[in-house]
Protein backbone atom coordinates (compact mmCIF):
# COMPACT_ATOMS: atom_id res chain seq x y z
CA UNK A 1 0.00 0.00 0.00
CA UNK A 2 1.36 3.41 -1.04
CA UNK A 3 0.95 6.38 1.22
CA UNK A 4 1.88 10.01 0.56
CA UNK A 5 2.41 12.00 3.75
CA UNK A 6 2.21 15.78 3.36
CA UNK A 7 3.46 17.40 6.56
CA UNK A 8 5.75 20.39 7.02
CA UNK A 9 7.11 19.58 10.49
CA UNK A 10 10.12 17.38 9.86
CA UNK A 11 10.20 15.90 13.36
CA UNK A 12 6.61 14.79 13.08
CA UNK A 13 6.80 13.60 9.49
CA UNK A 14 9.90 11.44 10.02
CA UNK A 15 8.41 9.61 12.99
CA UNK A 16 5.14 9.03 11.13
CA UNK A 17 7.00 7.78 8.08
CA UNK A 18 9.12 5.34 10.05
CA UNK A 19 6.08 4.09 11.89
CA UNK A 20 4.12 3.52 8.67
CA UNK A 21 7.08 1.81 7.05
CA UNK A 22 7.27 -0.40 10.12
CA UNK A 23 3.62 -1.25 9.57
CA UNK A 24 4.44 -2.50 6.09
CA UNK A 25 3.40 0.50 4.01
CA UNK A 26 5.42 2.27 1.37
CA UNK A 27 5.50 5.82 2.56
CA UNK A 28 6.70 8.96 0.82
CA UNK A 29 6.85 12.33 2.51
CA UNK A 30 6.85 15.90 1.35
CA UNK A 31 6.72 19.21 3.22
CA UNK A 32 5.66 21.44 0.34
CA UNK A 33 2.24 21.97 -1.16
CA UNK A 34 3.63 22.37 -4.68
CA UNK A 35 5.56 19.13 -4.42
CA UNK A 36 2.56 17.26 -3.02
CA UNK A 37 0.32 18.63 -5.75
CA UNK A 38 2.76 17.48 -8.42
CA UNK A 39 3.11 14.01 -6.89
CA UNK A 40 -0.64 13.67 -6.58
CA UNK A 41 -0.99 14.36 -10.30
CA UNK A 42 1.90 12.17 -11.43
CA UNK A 43 1.74 9.08 -9.26
CA UNK A 44 -0.84 6.74 -7.87
CA UNK A 45 -1.17 6.46 -4.11
CA UNK A 46 -3.60 4.39 -2.11
CA UNK A 47 -3.88 6.90 0.66
CA UNK A 48 -3.01 10.54 1.27
CA UNK A 49 -2.26 11.84 4.75
CA UNK A 50 -2.45 15.63 4.44
CA UNK A 51 -1.78 18.51 6.83
CA UNK A 52 -3.95 21.59 6.16
CA UNK A 53 -1.46 24.33 7.08
CA UNK A 54 1.43 24.10 4.66
CA UNK A 55 4.11 26.72 4.06
CA UNK A 56 3.17 27.37 0.46
CA UNK A 57 -0.47 26.41 0.28
CA UNK A 58 -3.52 24.84 1.77
CA UNK A 59 -3.77 21.06 2.16
CA UNK A 60 -7.49 21.25 1.41
CA UNK A 61 -6.59 22.23 -2.16
CA UNK A 62 -4.87 18.86 -2.59
CA UNK A 63 -8.08 17.16 -1.47
CA UNK A 64 -9.98 19.20 -4.03
CA UNK A 65 -7.55 18.35 -6.82
CA UNK A 66 -7.75 14.63 -6.00
CA UNK A 67 -11.53 14.69 -5.98
CA UNK A 68 -11.66 16.61 -9.24
CA UNK A 69 -9.45 13.97 -10.85
CA UNK A 70 -11.70 11.26 -9.40
CA UNK A 71 -8.80 9.63 -7.64
CA UNK A 72 -9.72 6.39 -5.87
CA UNK A 73 -7.22 7.11 -3.10
CA UNK A 74 -8.30 7.50 0.50
CA UNK A 75 -7.66 10.86 2.15
CA UNK A 76 -6.94 11.50 5.81
CA UNK A 77 -6.53 15.08 6.99
CA UNK A 78 -4.26 15.71 9.96
CA UNK A 79 -4.48 19.24 11.29
CA UNK A 80 -3.87 21.35 14.36
CA UNK A 81 -7.05 23.24 13.59
CA UNK A 82 -9.76 21.55 15.55
CA UNK A 83 -12.64 23.93 14.90
CA UNK A 84 -15.79 22.24 13.70
CA UNK A 85 -15.78 24.44 10.59
CA UNK A 86 -12.48 23.04 9.38
CA UNK A 87 -13.59 19.47 9.99
CA UNK A 88 -16.87 19.94 8.17
CA UNK A 89 -15.11 21.69 5.30
CA UNK A 90 -12.49 18.97 4.98
CA UNK A 91 -15.03 16.17 5.02
CA UNK A 92 -17.34 18.02 2.63
CA UNK A 93 -14.52 18.36 0.14
CA UNK A 94 -14.29 14.58 0.12
CA UNK A 95 -11.72 13.65 2.75
CA UNK A 96 -12.42 10.28 4.36
CA UNK A 97 -11.43 11.25 7.88
CA UNK A 98 -10.08 14.11 9.96
CA UNK A 99 -7.57 13.65 12.76
CA UNK A 100 -6.70 16.54 15.06
CA UNK A 101 -3.11 17.07 16.20
CA UNK A 102 -1.73 15.91 18.52
CA UNK A 103 -2.61 12.27 17.89
CA UNK A 104 -1.18 8.84 18.64
CA UNK A 105 0.49 6.90 15.85
CA UNK A 106 -1.68 3.88 16.61
CA UNK A 107 -4.77 6.04 16.18
CA UNK A 108 -3.44 7.30 12.86
CA UNK A 109 -2.79 3.71 11.81
CA UNK A 110 -6.28 2.58 12.81
CA UNK A 111 -7.83 5.43 10.83
CA UNK A 112 -5.68 4.70 7.75
CA UNK A 113 -6.59 1.00 7.94
CA UNK A 114 -10.27 1.83 8.23
CA UNK A 115 -10.05 4.10 5.19
CA UNK A 116 -8.18 1.54 3.11
CA UNK A 117 -10.65 -1.15 4.15
CA UNK A 118 -13.54 1.01 3.02
CA UNK A 119 -11.79 1.97 -0.21
CA UNK A 120 -10.47 -1.44 -1.21
CA UNK A 121 -12.97 -3.98 0.13
CA UNK A 122 -11.37 -7.10 -1.36
CA UNK A 123 -9.20 -9.03 1.10
CA UNK A 124 -9.85 -6.51 3.81
CA UNK A 125 -13.20 -7.61 5.14
CA UNK A 126 -11.58 -10.38 7.17
CA UNK A 127 -8.50 -9.97 9.28
CA UNK A 128 -6.74 -13.26 9.92
CA UNK A 129 -4.01 -13.45 12.49
CA UNK A 130 -2.87 -16.86 13.66
CA UNK A 131 -5.99 -18.80 14.57
CA UNK A 132 -7.89 -15.54 15.01
CA UNK A 133 -10.28 -14.24 12.41
CA UNK A 134 -11.87 -10.81 12.88
CA UNK A 135 -14.72 -9.55 10.72
CA UNK A 136 -15.00 -5.81 11.38
CA UNK A 137 -18.28 -5.34 9.49
CA UNK A 138 -20.24 -7.80 11.62
CA UNK A 139 -18.02 -7.22 14.66
CA UNK A 140 -17.35 -10.95 14.97
CA UNK A 141 -14.29 -12.75 16.30
CA UNK A 142 -13.75 -16.36 15.29
CA UNK A 143 -11.25 -18.86 16.65
CA UNK A 144 -11.04 -21.84 14.31
CA UNK A 145 -14.45 -20.96 12.81
CA UNK A 146 -15.95 -20.80 16.26
CA UNK A 147 -17.33 -17.47 17.38
CA UNK A 148 -16.32 -16.03 20.73
CA UNK A 149 -18.45 -13.34 22.30
CA UNK A 150 -16.77 -10.08 23.23
CA UNK A 151 -18.35 -6.92 24.62
CA UNK A 152 -18.28 -3.93 22.22
CA UNK A 153 -15.40 -2.31 24.14
CA UNK A 154 -13.42 -5.58 24.20
CA UNK A 155 -13.97 -5.96 20.48
CA UNK A 156 -12.78 -2.40 19.80
CA UNK A 157 -9.73 -2.96 21.98
CA UNK A 158 -8.82 -6.24 20.27
CA UNK A 159 -9.30 -4.71 16.81
CA UNK A 160 -7.14 -1.74 17.79
CA UNK A 161 -4.40 -4.07 19.03
CA UNK A 162 -4.58 -6.31 15.96
CA UNK A 163 -4.57 -3.31 13.61
CA UNK A 164 -1.38 -2.11 15.27
CA UNK A 165 0.23 -5.53 15.37
CA UNK A 166 3.75 -5.52 16.80
CA UNK A 167 3.43 -1.89 17.87
CA UNK A 168 3.40 -1.12 21.58
CA UNK A 169 0.26 0.77 22.49
CA UNK A 170 0.53 2.96 25.55
CA UNK A 171 -2.33 2.97 28.03
CA UNK A 172 -2.98 6.62 27.12
CA UNK A 173 -3.34 5.72 23.46
CA UNK A 174 -5.74 2.89 24.23
CA UNK A 175 -7.75 5.01 26.65
CA UNK A 176 -8.10 7.79 24.11
CA UNK A 177 -9.08 5.42 21.35
CA UNK A 178 -11.73 3.68 23.40
CA UNK A 179 -13.15 6.49 25.48
CA UNK A 180 -12.12 9.68 23.73
CA UNK A 181 -9.70 12.30 24.98
CA UNK A 182 -11.97 13.61 27.73
CA UNK A 183 -11.80 10.47 29.80
CA UNK A 184 -9.99 10.90 33.09
CA UNK A 185 -6.81 8.97 32.46
CA UNK A 186 -6.03 7.48 35.85
CA UNK A 187 -9.47 5.84 35.92
CA UNK A 188 -9.38 4.48 32.40
CA UNK A 189 -6.10 2.64 32.99
CA UNK A 190 -7.86 0.34 35.44
CA UNK A 191 -10.57 -0.30 32.87
CA UNK A 192 -7.99 -1.19 30.25
CA UNK A 193 -6.43 -3.74 32.55
CA UNK A 194 -9.80 -5.44 33.18
CA UNK A 195 -10.70 -5.45 29.50
CA UNK A 196 -7.33 -6.95 28.56
CA UNK A 197 -7.73 -9.56 31.28
CA UNK A 198 -11.18 -10.51 29.97
CA UNK A 199 -10.00 -10.75 26.36
CA UNK A 200 -7.06 -12.92 27.38
CA UNK A 201 -9.36 -15.19 29.37
CA UNK A 202 -11.81 -15.56 26.48
CA UNK A 203 -9.01 -16.23 23.98
CA UNK A 204 -7.42 -18.77 26.35
CA UNK A 205 -10.73 -20.58 26.78
CA UNK A 206 -10.85 -21.05 23.01
CA UNK A 207 -7.27 -22.30 22.96
CA UNK A 208 -6.19 -19.26 20.93
CA UNK A 209 -3.04 -18.63 22.97
CA UNK A 210 -1.79 -15.45 24.54
CA UNK A 211 -1.33 -12.95 21.72
CA UNK A 212 -1.59 -9.86 23.91
CA UNK A 213 1.65 -9.08 25.69
CA UNK A 214 2.21 -6.60 28.46
CA UNK A 215 5.07 -4.14 28.00
CA UNK A 216 6.00 -3.22 31.51
CA UNK A 217 5.45 0.43 32.37
CA UNK A 218 4.16 1.33 28.94
CA UNK A 219 1.22 -0.67 27.68
CA UNK A 220 0.30 -3.65 25.55
CA UNK A 221 1.16 -5.13 22.21
CA UNK A 222 -0.40 -7.77 19.97
CA UNK A 223 2.05 -10.29 18.66
CA UNK A 224 1.71 -13.71 17.08
CA UNK A 225 4.61 -15.45 18.76
Amino acid at each position, binding site marked *: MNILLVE*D*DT*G*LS*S*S*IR*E*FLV*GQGYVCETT*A*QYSDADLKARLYQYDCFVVDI*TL*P*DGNGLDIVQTLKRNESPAGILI*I*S*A*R*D*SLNDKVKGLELGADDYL*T*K*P*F*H*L*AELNARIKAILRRRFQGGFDRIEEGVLTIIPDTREVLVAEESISLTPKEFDLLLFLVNNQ*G*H*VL*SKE*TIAEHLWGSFMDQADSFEFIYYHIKNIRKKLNNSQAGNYIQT*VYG*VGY*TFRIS
Partner: protein
Amino acid sequence: MKLLTRSSIYFSVFFIIILLLSGTGLFYLLRTLVYEEVDEYLVLEKQFIQDRYEEQGLEFLDRIRDSQNIMISDVFSVLPCTTDVLQDTFLVLPHEDELAPFRQLSFAVGTDSTYYFITIRKSLFETEDLVESISIAIGFTILCSFILLVLLNVYGQSILWKPFRELLTTMKFYDFRSEVVFPEVPTKIDEFRDLNTHLTNLTGKLKQEYQLVKRFTEDASHEMQTPVAAIITNLEMSFQETVPEERRRNYIAEAYRSANTLSRLHSALATLTRLENGEFEDNIHIDIPDKVRQILKSMQDLIDAKKIAIETVENASISIWINESIIDLMLRNLLQNAIKHNVPNGSIWISFEKNLLKIENTGKPYTGDPERLFGRFRKAIDSSPSLGLGLSIVQQICHLENFTITYSVEEALHTIILTFPSMK
Protein backbone atom coordinates in the same frame (compact mmCIF):
# COMPACT_ATOMS: atom_id res chain seq x y z
CA MET B 1 -41.40 51.96 29.95
CA LYS B 2 -41.33 53.29 26.44
CA LEU B 3 -39.92 56.74 25.79
CA LEU B 4 -43.20 57.70 24.14
CA THR B 5 -45.29 56.65 27.16
CA ARG B 6 -42.98 58.44 29.53
CA SER B 7 -42.89 61.64 27.50
CA SER B 8 -46.69 61.54 27.13
CA ILE B 9 -47.04 61.19 30.90
CA TYR B 10 -44.76 64.16 31.54
CA PHE B 11 -46.57 66.13 28.90
CA SER B 12 -49.98 65.34 30.42
CA VAL B 13 -48.92 66.10 34.00
CA PHE B 14 -47.45 69.46 33.06
CA PHE B 15 -50.41 70.27 30.93
CA ILE B 16 -52.93 69.46 33.67
CA ILE B 17 -51.02 71.60 36.19
CA ILE B 18 -50.93 74.49 33.72
CA LEU B 19 -54.58 73.95 32.92
CA LEU B 20 -55.60 74.03 36.61
CA LEU B 21 -53.53 77.13 37.36
CA SER B 22 -54.63 79.05 34.30
CA GLY B 23 -58.28 77.98 34.80
CA THR B 24 -58.28 79.23 38.39
CA GLY B 25 -56.52 82.40 37.34
CA LEU B 26 -59.02 83.02 34.59
CA PHE B 27 -61.93 82.43 36.93
CA TYR B 28 -60.64 84.94 39.48
CA LEU B 29 -59.80 87.47 36.79
CA LEU B 30 -63.32 87.30 35.40
CA ARG B 31 -64.79 87.62 38.87
CA THR B 32 -62.66 90.63 39.69
CA LEU B 33 -63.81 92.26 36.49
CA VAL B 34 -67.43 91.58 37.36
CA TYR B 35 -66.96 92.92 40.92
CA GLU B 36 -65.36 96.08 39.63
CA GLU B 37 -68.29 96.60 37.29
CA VAL B 38 -70.85 95.98 40.06
CA ASP B 39 -69.01 98.13 42.58
CA GLU B 40 -68.85 100.98 40.12
CA TYR B 41 -72.58 100.68 39.54
CA LEU B 42 -73.26 100.68 43.27
CA VAL B 43 -71.12 103.80 43.80
CA LEU B 44 -72.90 105.60 40.97
CA GLU B 45 -76.25 104.60 42.43
CA LYS B 46 -75.20 105.87 45.82
CA GLN B 47 -74.14 109.17 44.24
CA PHE B 48 -77.51 109.38 42.55
CA ILE B 49 -79.39 108.75 45.83
CA GLN B 50 -77.29 111.24 47.70
CA ASP B 51 -77.82 113.91 45.04
CA ARG B 52 -81.58 113.33 44.89
CA TYR B 53 -81.84 113.34 48.68
CA GLU B 54 -80.09 116.65 48.87
CA GLU B 55 -82.45 118.04 46.27
CA GLN B 56 -85.71 116.51 47.39
CA GLY B 57 -85.11 115.47 51.00
CA LEU B 58 -87.20 112.90 52.74
CA GLU B 59 -89.71 112.81 49.97
CA PHE B 60 -87.27 111.09 47.68
CA LEU B 61 -86.42 108.52 50.26
CA ASP B 62 -90.08 107.70 50.76
CA ARG B 63 -90.47 107.27 47.05
CA ILE B 64 -87.69 104.82 46.70
CA ARG B 65 -88.30 103.03 49.96
CA ASP B 66 -90.25 100.27 48.28
CA SER B 67 -87.76 99.61 45.50
CA GLN B 68 -86.62 96.09 45.37
CA ASN B 69 -82.93 96.52 45.89
CA ILE B 70 -82.91 99.45 48.26
CA MET B 71 -83.32 99.17 51.98
CA ILE B 72 -83.66 102.23 54.17
CA SER B 73 -83.31 101.71 57.89
CA ASP B 74 -84.82 103.86 60.64
CA VAL B 75 -83.62 107.19 61.63
CA PHE B 76 -80.49 107.38 63.67
CA SER B 77 -79.59 110.24 65.85
CA VAL B 78 -75.92 109.70 65.41
CA LEU B 79 -74.04 108.90 62.24
CA PRO B 80 -74.34 105.06 62.00
CA CYS B 81 -71.24 104.67 59.96
CA THR B 82 -68.54 106.99 58.94
CA THR B 83 -67.44 105.19 55.81
CA ASP B 84 -69.28 103.27 53.16
CA VAL B 85 -69.37 99.49 53.57
CA LEU B 86 -69.10 97.24 50.47
CA GLN B 87 -69.77 93.57 51.04
CA ASP B 88 -71.05 90.26 49.65
CA THR B 89 -74.21 88.77 50.96
CA PHE B 90 -76.76 86.09 50.21
CA LEU B 91 -80.44 86.74 50.06
CA VAL B 92 -83.50 84.70 49.27
CA LEU B 93 -84.99 85.74 45.97
CA PRO B 94 -88.64 86.73 46.20
CA HIS B 95 -89.99 84.03 43.93
CA GLU B 96 -87.48 81.32 44.45
CA ASP B 97 -86.53 79.35 47.52
CA GLU B 98 -82.88 79.72 46.87
CA LEU B 99 -80.09 81.83 48.24
CA ALA B 100 -78.61 84.09 45.63
CA PRO B 101 -75.38 86.08 45.84
CA PHE B 102 -75.61 89.84 46.14
CA ARG B 103 -73.20 92.73 46.39
CA GLN B 104 -74.31 95.51 48.69
CA LEU B 105 -73.21 99.04 49.56
CA SER B 106 -74.25 100.56 52.84
CA PHE B 107 -73.97 104.25 53.52
CA ALA B 108 -75.62 106.97 55.55
CA VAL B 109 -77.33 110.16 54.47
CA GLY B 110 -78.79 113.00 56.53
CA THR B 111 -77.76 115.91 58.66
CA ASP B 112 -78.14 117.12 62.24
CA SER B 113 -79.05 114.06 64.20
CA THR B 114 -81.33 112.77 61.52
CA TYR B 115 -79.54 110.12 59.63
CA TYR B 116 -80.79 107.42 57.32
CA PHE B 117 -78.89 104.23 56.84
CA ILE B 118 -79.29 103.09 53.25
CA THR B 119 -78.21 99.78 51.74
CA ILE B 120 -78.33 99.31 48.01
CA ARG B 121 -77.91 95.86 46.47
CA LYS B 122 -77.06 94.43 43.14
CA SER B 123 -77.64 90.81 42.29
CA LEU B 124 -74.61 88.86 41.19
CA PHE B 125 -76.76 86.00 40.09
CA GLU B 126 -76.64 86.64 36.34
CA THR B 127 -73.01 87.67 36.23
CA GLU B 128 -71.97 84.59 38.24
CA ASP B 129 -73.68 82.47 35.62
CA LEU B 130 -71.84 84.32 32.91
CA VAL B 131 -68.48 83.75 34.56
CA GLU B 132 -69.27 80.08 34.91
CA SER B 133 -70.27 79.64 31.27
CA ILE B 134 -67.25 81.52 30.03
CA SER B 135 -64.95 79.41 32.22
CA ILE B 136 -66.55 76.18 31.03
CA ALA B 137 -66.32 77.22 27.39
CA ILE B 138 -62.68 78.19 27.66
CA GLY B 139 -61.85 75.12 29.75
CA PHE B 140 -63.50 72.83 27.25
CA THR B 141 -61.62 74.39 24.35
CA ILE B 142 -58.31 74.00 26.19
CA LEU B 143 -59.09 70.39 27.10
CA CYS B 144 -59.95 69.53 23.49
CA SER B 145 -56.76 71.09 22.21
CA PHE B 146 -54.83 69.23 24.91
CA ILE B 147 -56.19 65.86 23.81
CA LEU B 148 -55.47 66.74 20.22
CA LEU B 149 -51.92 67.77 21.13
CA VAL B 150 -51.27 64.52 22.99
CA LEU B 151 -52.51 62.48 20.04
CA LEU B 152 -50.42 64.49 17.61
CA ASN B 153 -47.41 64.14 19.89
CA VAL B 154 -47.79 60.37 20.10
CA TYR B 155 -48.17 60.09 16.35
CA GLY B 156 -45.32 62.48 15.57
CA GLN B 157 -42.95 60.86 18.04
CA SER B 158 -43.65 57.38 16.74
CA ILE B 159 -42.74 58.55 13.24
CA LEU B 160 -39.64 60.39 14.48
CA TRP B 161 -38.31 57.42 16.44
CA LYS B 162 -39.04 54.84 13.78
CA PRO B 163 -35.48 54.79 12.35
CA PHE B 164 -34.15 54.44 15.90
CA ARG B 165 -36.28 51.39 16.53
CA GLU B 166 -35.16 49.96 13.22
CA LEU B 167 -31.56 50.52 14.27
CA LEU B 168 -32.22 48.67 17.51
CA THR B 169 -33.73 45.72 15.67
CA THR B 170 -30.79 45.66 13.27
CA MET B 171 -28.33 45.73 16.19
CA LYS B 172 -30.19 42.94 17.92
CA PHE B 173 -29.87 40.61 14.96
CA TYR B 174 -26.42 41.72 13.84
CA ASP B 175 -23.58 39.25 14.20
CA PHE B 176 -20.13 40.80 13.83
CA ARG B 177 -18.64 37.38 13.20
CA SER B 178 -20.46 37.24 9.86
CA GLU B 179 -19.02 38.78 6.71
CA VAL B 180 -21.93 41.21 6.40
CA VAL B 181 -21.23 44.93 6.95
CA PHE B 182 -23.56 46.64 9.43
CA PRO B 183 -26.51 47.70 7.27
CA GLU B 184 -27.58 51.33 6.80
CA VAL B 185 -31.01 52.32 8.08
CA PRO B 186 -32.46 55.07 5.87
CA THR B 187 -33.18 58.25 7.84
CA LYS B 188 -32.95 62.01 7.32
CA ILE B 189 -32.33 62.75 11.00
CA ASP B 190 -28.70 63.74 11.63
CA GLU B 191 -28.44 62.17 15.09
CA PHE B 192 -29.69 58.81 13.92
CA ARG B 193 -27.50 58.94 10.86
CA ASP B 194 -24.52 59.66 13.13
CA LEU B 195 -25.50 56.78 15.37
CA ASN B 196 -25.71 54.53 12.33
CA THR B 197 -22.30 55.64 11.09
CA HIS B 198 -20.70 55.11 14.50
CA LEU B 199 -22.29 51.69 14.80
CA THR B 200 -20.99 50.76 11.37
CA ASN B 201 -17.49 51.92 12.32
CA LEU B 202 -17.62 50.19 15.69
CA THR B 203 -18.80 46.88 14.28
CA GLY B 204 -16.20 47.22 11.53
CA LYS B 205 -13.45 47.48 14.14
CA LEU B 206 -14.95 44.63 16.14
CA LYS B 207 -15.06 42.51 13.02
CA GLN B 208 -11.43 43.30 12.27
CA GLU B 209 -10.33 42.56 15.85
CA TYR B 210 -12.31 39.35 15.83
CA GLN B 211 -10.71 38.20 12.58
CA LEU B 212 -7.26 39.03 13.98
CA VAL B 213 -7.88 37.16 17.22
CA LYS B 214 -9.34 34.23 15.31
CA ARG B 215 -6.36 34.09 12.95
CA PHE B 216 -4.01 34.37 15.91
CA THR B 217 -5.68 31.52 17.83
CA GLU B 218 -5.66 29.32 14.76
CA ASP B 219 -2.02 30.09 14.07
CA ALA B 220 -1.05 29.68 17.71
CA SER B 221 -2.87 26.37 17.95
CA HIS B 222 -1.14 25.18 14.80
CA GLU B 223 2.26 26.28 16.07
CA MET B 224 1.66 24.55 19.40
CA GLN B 225 -0.12 21.37 18.36
CA THR B 226 2.46 20.46 15.77
CA PRO B 227 5.38 20.23 18.22
CA VAL B 228 3.12 18.41 20.66
CA ALA B 229 2.22 15.94 17.92
CA ALA B 230 5.90 15.52 17.13
CA ILE B 231 6.70 14.87 20.80
CA ILE B 232 3.94 12.28 21.15
CA THR B 233 4.69 10.39 17.96
CA ASN B 234 8.45 10.37 18.55
CA LEU B 235 8.09 9.14 22.11
CA GLU B 236 5.60 6.53 20.93
CA MET B 237 8.18 5.29 18.44
CA SER B 238 10.93 5.36 21.08
CA PHE B 239 9.26 2.83 23.34
CA GLN B 240 8.71 0.28 20.60
CA GLU B 241 10.64 -2.86 21.48
CA THR B 242 11.85 -3.52 17.95
CA VAL B 243 13.52 -0.13 17.54
CA PRO B 244 17.34 -0.26 17.67
CA GLU B 245 18.98 1.76 20.43
CA GLU B 246 20.47 4.28 18.00
CA ARG B 247 17.10 5.14 16.44
CA ARG B 248 15.54 5.32 19.87
CA ARG B 249 17.98 8.08 20.81
CA ASN B 250 17.08 9.90 17.60
CA TYR B 251 13.40 9.78 18.46
CA ILE B 252 14.04 11.11 21.93
CA ALA B 253 16.28 13.88 20.59
CA GLU B 254 13.54 14.86 18.13
CA ALA B 255 10.97 14.96 20.92
CA TYR B 256 13.38 17.06 23.00
CA ARG B 257 13.81 19.52 20.14
CA SER B 258 10.06 19.86 19.76
CA ALA B 259 9.66 20.37 23.49
CA ASN B 260 12.21 23.19 23.28
CA THR B 261 10.32 24.81 20.42
CA LEU B 262 7.18 24.62 22.49
CA SER B 263 8.91 26.20 25.44
CA ARG B 264 10.32 29.05 23.33
CA LEU B 265 6.92 29.59 21.80
CA HIS B 266 5.35 29.82 25.21
CA SER B 267 7.85 32.36 26.50
CA ALA B 268 7.52 34.49 23.34
CA LEU B 269 3.73 34.50 23.64
CA ALA B 270 3.99 35.29 27.34
CA THR B 271 6.27 38.25 26.52
CA LEU B 272 3.77 39.52 23.97
CA THR B 273 0.97 39.27 26.52
CA ARG B 274 3.03 41.04 29.16
CA LEU B 275 3.82 43.81 26.70
CA GLU B 276 0.16 44.14 25.82
CA ASN B 277 -0.75 44.34 29.49
CA GLY B 278 1.90 47.02 30.00
CA GLU B 279 3.71 45.09 32.70
CA PHE B 280 7.05 46.81 32.13
CA GLU B 281 7.67 49.93 34.20
CA ASP B 282 10.72 51.35 36.02
CA ASN B 283 12.13 53.45 33.18
CA ILE B 284 15.72 54.62 33.20
CA HIS B 285 17.93 56.56 30.77
CA ILE B 286 19.48 54.18 28.28
CA ASP B 287 22.32 55.07 25.97
CA ILE B 288 21.41 53.24 22.75
CA PRO B 289 24.93 52.96 21.17
CA ASP B 290 26.23 51.56 24.47
CA LYS B 291 23.42 49.05 24.66
CA VAL B 292 23.96 47.94 21.05
CA ARG B 293 27.68 47.40 21.66
CA GLN B 294 26.90 45.44 24.80
CA ILE B 295 24.46 43.14 22.98
CA LEU B 296 26.83 42.64 20.04
CA LYS B 297 29.51 41.61 22.49
CA SER B 298 27.25 38.95 23.96
CA MET B 299 26.56 37.64 20.45
CA GLN B 300 30.20 37.56 19.43
CA ASP B 301 30.16 33.76 19.10
CA LEU B 302 27.31 33.84 16.60
CA ILE B 303 28.98 36.64 14.65
CA ASP B 304 32.29 34.82 14.53
CA ALA B 305 30.66 31.56 13.49
CA LYS B 306 29.17 33.20 10.41
CA LYS B 307 32.22 35.42 9.87
CA ILE B 308 30.10 38.55 9.73
CA ALA B 309 31.77 41.95 9.54
CA ILE B 310 30.16 44.63 11.65
CA GLU B 311 30.63 48.34 11.10
CA THR B 312 29.17 50.98 13.41
CA VAL B 313 28.97 54.70 12.71
CA GLU B 314 28.05 57.02 15.54
CA ASN B 315 26.95 60.40 14.19
CA ALA B 316 24.92 61.33 17.25
CA SER B 317 24.34 59.99 20.70
CA ILE B 318 20.91 58.62 21.44
CA SER B 319 19.61 58.40 24.96
CA ILE B 320 16.05 57.37 25.68
CA TRP B 321 13.91 56.97 28.79
CA ILE B 322 12.71 53.35 28.79
CA ASN B 323 12.56 50.11 30.74
CA GLU B 324 15.89 48.36 30.35
CA SER B 325 14.57 44.86 29.67
CA ILE B 326 12.22 46.16 26.98
CA ILE B 327 14.90 47.94 25.00
CA ASP B 328 17.22 44.99 25.53
CA LEU B 329 14.58 42.61 24.18
CA MET B 330 13.93 44.80 21.16
CA LEU B 331 17.55 45.46 20.16
CA ARG B 332 18.45 41.83 20.81
CA ASN B 333 15.66 40.71 18.48
CA LEU B 334 16.69 43.11 15.73
CA LEU B 335 20.41 42.29 15.95
CA GLN B 336 19.70 38.59 16.21
CA ASN B 337 17.64 38.79 13.02
CA ALA B 338 20.44 40.67 11.29
CA ILE B 339 22.83 37.87 12.23
CA LYS B 340 20.50 34.88 11.83
CA HIS B 341 19.21 35.87 8.40
CA ASN B 342 22.62 36.94 7.20
CA VAL B 343 24.74 35.02 4.74
CA PRO B 344 28.17 33.60 5.69
CA ASN B 345 30.88 36.27 5.33
CA GLY B 346 28.13 38.90 5.23
CA SER B 347 28.12 42.37 6.73
CA ILE B 348 26.09 44.44 9.13
CA TRP B 349 26.15 48.23 9.13
CA ILE B 350 24.80 50.01 12.16
CA SER B 351 24.51 53.79 12.26
CA PHE B 352 23.30 56.09 15.01
CA GLU B 353 21.77 59.38 13.87
CA LYS B 354 19.75 61.93 15.80
CA ASN B 355 16.76 60.02 17.19
CA LEU B 356 17.36 57.29 14.69
CA LEU B 357 18.93 53.83 14.57
CA LYS B 358 19.64 52.17 11.26
CA ILE B 359 20.57 48.49 10.93
CA GLU B 360 21.46 47.18 7.50
CA ASN B 361 22.49 43.64 6.77
CA THR B 362 23.24 41.44 3.83
CA GLY B 363 20.99 38.44 3.50
CA LYS B 364 18.84 36.42 1.18
CA PRO B 365 16.58 38.29 -1.23
CA TYR B 366 12.97 38.46 -0.04
CA THR B 367 10.25 39.09 -2.58
CA GLY B 368 7.20 39.54 -0.37
CA ASP B 369 6.12 42.67 1.46
CA PRO B 370 8.67 43.12 4.29
CA GLU B 371 6.04 44.78 6.52
CA ARG B 372 4.18 41.45 6.49
CA LEU B 373 6.96 39.98 8.60
CA PHE B 374 5.79 42.10 11.54
CA GLY B 375 2.68 39.89 11.73
CA ARG B 376 2.55 37.06 14.23
CA PHE B 377 3.83 33.67 13.00
CA ARG B 378 5.10 35.24 9.79
CA LYS B 379 8.41 33.92 8.58
CA ALA B 380 10.47 34.73 5.53
CA ILE B 381 10.74 31.02 4.82
CA ASP B 382 7.74 29.25 6.26
CA SER B 383 9.50 26.01 6.99
CA SER B 384 12.29 27.68 8.97
CA PRO B 385 12.57 26.61 12.59
CA SER B 386 12.12 30.18 13.90
CA LEU B 387 8.87 31.01 15.61
CA GLY B 388 7.98 34.07 13.57
CA LEU B 389 7.23 36.08 16.69
CA GLY B 390 10.42 38.17 17.05
CA LEU B 391 9.37 41.04 14.83
CA SER B 392 5.84 41.06 16.26
CA ILE B 393 7.39 41.57 19.67
CA VAL B 394 9.52 44.40 18.26
CA GLN B 395 6.49 45.98 16.68
CA GLN B 396 4.47 45.66 19.87
CA ILE B 397 7.25 47.49 21.74
CA CYS B 398 7.39 50.23 19.08
CA HIS B 399 3.65 50.62 19.37
CA LEU B 400 3.92 50.86 23.15
CA GLU B 401 6.80 53.34 23.21
CA ASN B 402 5.74 55.44 20.18
CA PHE B 403 8.73 54.41 18.11
CA THR B 404 8.34 54.04 14.38
CA ILE B 405 9.94 51.17 12.59
CA THR B 406 10.31 50.49 8.88
CA TYR B 407 11.66 47.43 7.20
CA SER B 408 12.71 47.42 3.59
CA VAL B 409 14.52 44.95 1.40
CA GLU B 410 16.45 45.93 -1.69
CA GLU B 411 17.88 42.97 -3.52
CA ALA B 412 19.77 41.23 -0.74
CA LEU B 413 20.13 44.27 1.52
CA HIS B 414 17.76 44.36 4.47
CA THR B 415 17.29 47.71 6.19
CA ILE B 416 15.60 48.39 9.51
CA ILE B 417 15.12 52.01 10.51
CA LEU B 418 14.01 52.69 14.05
CA THR B 419 12.96 56.26 14.87
CA PHE B 420 12.67 57.36 18.48
CA PRO B 421 10.40 60.21 19.55
CA SER B 422 12.47 63.35 20.16
CA MET B 423 13.25 63.81 23.86
CA LYS B 424 12.20 67.01 25.58
